[in-house]
């Protein structure tokens, strides 16, 4: 196992190198550069201004030259400044965006995990009952509803129809002070985006848990356990669930990185300043540094969480061995 882990960790570096090269190249191939943004916003912008600024920002050099320079700086932890925000790109993402995404995605994941497991188990154990049908319908609805539509509807109901019962978006109320008011204010701002973002995962994982549980509870060893007179509770939660949850662990592990980048719709609808939105905006306005540091970070997350999922799988299932 240790050899396997070391090998996987060492593979991270060449993987990230190839990913960064491809990403930088793709970004460079996209038409437009930051100078075009300046030109659009400033009438009277002349060709001299354009050439001067291109030279100043090094955009007159070939992309692979710029990439090499970027790589040299990035290895030293310097990902360059953000042209959008005037701050170091890495510090901006780590300070202003990542925590927000961690909060939103983490809570969504936790909510989905905590609800989908018992919902899936109960649905499987009470198959073909009214409860099972209700859970199934909710699952289909959750999978079918687009997140952005669900988000807008939640805002409309809770903010507009209910006259501001919950906020229409954002991170915090300006000007609020005091520990508890600020804390509750954050909670209020989290409720709707977490509900929206977790809806798809919750529905998918519930279905998955249900299917996995149904498969396991009909296996011979479960029948044997019942025949031996073990309590049903013990059979369900100690024997059946433990095996049924294994595929879900892998699924969750693979989904975690997606929560960081895939929350863009939720972040846009709820004006939540997270990484998904940051990447999207950065690509549109040619803020290469923000785009690169965000994409590299997510790539690292994907690699690490895939590894974590493999390790967790091995721990949960003694039959799995890595060499």
């Amino acid at each position, binding site marked *: 196992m240790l050899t396997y882990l070391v090998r996987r960790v060492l593979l991270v570096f060449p993987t990230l190198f190839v990913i960064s090269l491809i990403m930088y190249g793709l970004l460079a191939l996209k*038409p*437009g*550069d930051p*100078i*075009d*943004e*300046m030109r659009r*916003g*400033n*009438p*009277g*912008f*002349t*060709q001299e*201004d*354009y*050439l*001067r*600024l291109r030279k*100043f*920002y090094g955009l007159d050099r070939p992309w692979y030259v710029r990439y090499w320079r970027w790589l040299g700086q990035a290895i030293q932890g310097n990902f*360059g*400044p953000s042209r*959008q*925000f*005037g*701050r*170091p790109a890495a510090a901006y993402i780590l300070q202003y965006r990542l925590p927000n995404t961690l909060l939103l995605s983490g809570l969504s994941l936790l909510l989905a995990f905590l609800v989908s497991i018992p919902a899936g188990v109960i649905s499987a154990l009470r198959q073909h009952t009214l409860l099972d049908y209700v859970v199934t319908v909710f699952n289909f609805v959750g999978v079918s509803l687009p997140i952005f539509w669900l988000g*807008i509807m939640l*805002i409309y109901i809770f*903010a*507009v129809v209910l*006259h*501001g*019962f*919950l*906020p*229409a*978006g*954002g*991170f*915090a*109320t*300006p*000007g609020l002070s005091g520990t*508890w*008011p600020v804390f*509750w*204010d954050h*909670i*209020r701002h989290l409720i709707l985006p977490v509900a929206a973002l977790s809806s798809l995962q919750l529905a998918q994982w519930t279905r998955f848990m249900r299917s996995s549980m149904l498969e396991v509870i009909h296996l011979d060893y479960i029948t044997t356990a019942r025949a031996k007179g073990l309590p049903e509770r013990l059979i369900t939660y100690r024997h059946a669930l433990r095996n049924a949850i294994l595929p879900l662990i892998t699924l969750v592990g693979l989904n975690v990185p997606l929560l960081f980048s895939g929350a863009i719709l939720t972040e*846009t*609808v709820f*004006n939540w*300043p997270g990484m998904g*939105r940051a990447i999207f*905006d950065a690509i*549109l*306005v*040619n803020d290469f540094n923000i785009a690169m540091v965000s994409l590299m970070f997510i790539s690292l997350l994907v690699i690490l969480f895939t590894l974590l999922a493999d390790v967790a799988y091995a721990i949960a299932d003694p039959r799995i061995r890595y060499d």
Partner: protein
Amino acid sequence: MKGRLLLSAMLMGLLVGIVAWASPSLNNLVIGATQEPSNLCPWEGSADTKENVMGIFYLGLTYYDSKGVLYPGLATEIPTAENGRLVAFYDTAGNLIRQEVLWTIRSDATWSDGTPITTDDVLFTYEVQQTPELPISTRTYSDLIKEIIKVDNKSFWIVYKTPNLFYAAVAGSIGLARFGDIAPKHIWEPVYRQVMAQVKATPEKAAEIVEGQFLGAPPSIGTGLVVGSGAFKFEEWQINQFIRFSRRPGFFLGAPGAEANYLKEITVRFIVNQATLISAILAGEIEAADDICLAGQDPAVLAAQLGDRAVVETTASGFIEKLNFNLFPQCATAADLLLGDKRTRQAIIQAIDREDVATTVYPGAIVSNSFMIRGDVGFTDDVNQWAYDPEAAKALLAAIGWKDSDGDGWLERVSADGRTIEFDMHWVATVAAFRIRTGEILQEFLKEVGIKLEVENLPGSVLFSTEYLNHGSDCTWRGIVEYAEAGGIGQAPADPLSNELYANDLLAIPVTPLLENVPLLANGFGGTNIMGWINNRFDELRAQALKEFSEAKRVPILVEMQKIYNEELPTAPLYERSETVTKAAGLVNYTKGTAVARGQFWNAWEWGWAQNGAVAVR
């Protein structure tokens, strides 16, 4: 029992935030905006995103009111020839060769930390503006300045080496900082000197140093002391969320009655998604919208949704939505369609019911026939209105050889070299919802006259990239590109007399190379005349207008320019875009009034709630 208590506490907590937003009772205002400035640096930045926010806590030497009248701001008076503050020198041929303008800063003008605003601030501002190592976006006006001469602590002469018609206007036209004209030396000089020292020491890292330590300096990103010259002072900036300002007591510009009757705090909230922003307005979390965030919304629908809780107002934006034609003979596709023949362009504009387009896609817009906006000095409506007339369009097209020979509904013609060319025209615009709809509508109208329109929508960052927009001669776009451009303005320059319409800058000294403003291979595809329109008379008139200080004498020049434009139609204007703002009932003086006022936030010192005794003066 404990569970019920906890649940009740949580529900109460949920309700806490309902009353936390600003309201008349707190004498505050929350404004919604979809665009956030990237920094608070007075010299650098994009006009649209920054101008409003900077306008709250900066005041320029002058400002325009809601009727387009220019007033002194930080200055004691507007320099004119009559008051002796504008001195023009002419050569024997009558050409304006030098211009000197005397400004005096108000004796009570101070920065928000109490430091007096002086000529030293002006000199420093100009020094920074002209520093070649800094990525100042444009130096169009500052490059006209020969020198600034200090008279005393409050007065200074600006000597222009080339005439600057807009020597007293806003938005950086004077030639100092783009935002607010004058920057605080005592705040920015330490930053500037340190940055320049580092740049000199490690020139290969200049871009990084400047971006990180100048544009990213604490006064620029709001993490350090931020001072301004306006009626409000900066309080805090929560990035991606809001910026908050508080009133400066005793500011020299005010409104009738006690100062306490007017706003004491303003918060600008940034919500990038328009639907979410509108929800926040409907929920009462936002009491006013800026003039950009509701683009494309139907004012009537908004008014119905808001009822008597808020007022919906529309103003001219100063932007004209237009169809730009590819007139480059080098682009074979465009040349085959005879777009270079003005009769083709006249036919196309008559084939479109522009009134229908305007009311459908941009409620509140007004059909335009000029490159100038209504209400501006020299604007004339006494031009061909190009009314919707598909029969006239068909006749024009037939006259230049287009006919539906095969009966399939599309026009064809036979070229000089014997090729059969179908009228299949490329149209490209951004992915904005109203433009997607415009493409669909144009397809229907042009189909009626036998023109097939191939529509394409691209992200703005691609469409407006130099590689795309400036390469019309390479046929990157092969027919029409649609976007909005600031109307060429005779009074206040958003875009001085339409930068994109001239081919040769006959005003420049020294004279610029031939066709410098037309993007071609020879000039590295530089220039803003992306259509490739060349009209020598237009260029001559433009140069004359830009040297004519007398408005009375400038008007006939501008009228002739508009007539040429209207006849030639290098671009087919669709409509003047309107801007829609909402303001909660009781909010007074929150009005832009005219596109000449530039932005919505020109008069923050007058904003207030009628419920608190604020007097409506606009």
